[in-house]
């Protein structure tokens, strides 16, 4: 029987209300048993797990000293992801589970840290000739968010051919200045917002 929040009525006798009251106590116990340690368990009221069905874009509100955890469809993954809402309904949501993991040493990926920093990493191969070569961050695209400000970048050479970051880094990419030499590719990591 469902929970009934409208019993007992003032005209009820205990003989007529008893069953409904008992059903409510059972419904309360059943409710608490979901995601929580039940009345008869150790530490009643604490959480066993927190299951978060998607809010489907109806975001929770937060006060001055309040934060909220919730799940919603990730804009870049198109699947349910875990998010944090900061105090006072800060629109700069922090995504906790959204990102694109890589599956090997020569792939592209990204992850947004819970504090809001965006990490992107990838690789770029170069011609043998010395030169200044542009490196473009993957995205923006359906599965890659775009940096809003020029990120900090670090590169790692995979050969003895010298290469440095050069020029001005933008939200779209950076430039690598390399010496003469074949078979150079670099891996990079960029951190921004």
């Amino acid at each position: 029987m469902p929970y009934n929040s409208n019993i007992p009525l003032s005209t009820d006798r205990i003989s007529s209300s008893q069953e409904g009251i008992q059903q409510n106590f059972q419904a309360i116990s059943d409710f608490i048993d979901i995601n929580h340690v039940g009345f008869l368990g150790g530490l009643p009221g604490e959480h066993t797990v927190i299951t978060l069905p998607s809010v489907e874009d109806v975001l929770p509100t937060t006060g001055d000293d309040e934060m909220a955890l919730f799940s919603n469809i990730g804009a870049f993954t198109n699947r349910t992801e875990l998010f944090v809402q900061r105090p006072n309904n800060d629109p700069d949501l922090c995504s906790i589970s959204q990102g694109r993991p890589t599956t090997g040493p020569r792939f592209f990926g990204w992850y947004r840290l819970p504090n809001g920093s965006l990490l992107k990493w990838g690789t770029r191969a170069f011609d043998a000739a010395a030169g200044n070569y542009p490196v473009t961050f993957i995205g923006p695209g359906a599965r890659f968010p775009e940096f809003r400000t020029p990120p900090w970048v670090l590169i790692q050479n995979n050969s003895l051919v010298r290469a440095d970051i050069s020029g001005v880094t933008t939200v779209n990419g950076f430039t690598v200045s390399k010496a003469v030499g074949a078979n150079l590719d670099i891996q990079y990591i960029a951190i921004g917002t």
Partner: protein
Amino acid sequence: MAYKHNIPQPADELRFSQADILNNFQAIETVFEKNHGGFGTNIEGKHKFVQMNIQGSVGTSVGDQVVLGVQLGAFSGIPELYFRGENSGPVRNITEGLNNTTAIGPGWYRTASGTLVKWGIVYIPAAAGTYNSAFIVAANIPPFATTPSMFISPIHPTPQLGVAINLVNLTGNVNNLNFSLVTTATLAGYFANILAIGT
């Protein structure tokens, strides 16, 4: 009316207790539906979301429990979500950190495991030699407690075709990055981006 946890009394007759019992059932429903799917819904007892306020103290974890909560960030000064591991282990603010808004940083983030990641820029002198550069520590940037792992990536202020800086012997301690500049660059005033991972 507020929830009453002391009703009914043994001597109560239903006509006296009825209003209180009714009130309590309504109060229970109101409280349960905060943050939770309500009675009889397809998500009954599950969480629609979890709102957490700053409390007077951080939560304790007994045995293999872990805790999520909210406290003021020591470096951000704003409410942050924290994680605390089993047996009331260290408290880690998992939403705190400094986001760099320019290509030179600085920035930092501490993972829930306690790993501190810092990134930023250091100056590279024009002459070959051995140098050190202090990790940035400020009111909004925590220090390392142990010597971090360090990575460095030289930068030319303007594209310099085929010219590269050779940095070796990357070492350091909790306060400094040490490095040796082997090849003298053709221009002074270079910088390098550094990434340091420690605790």
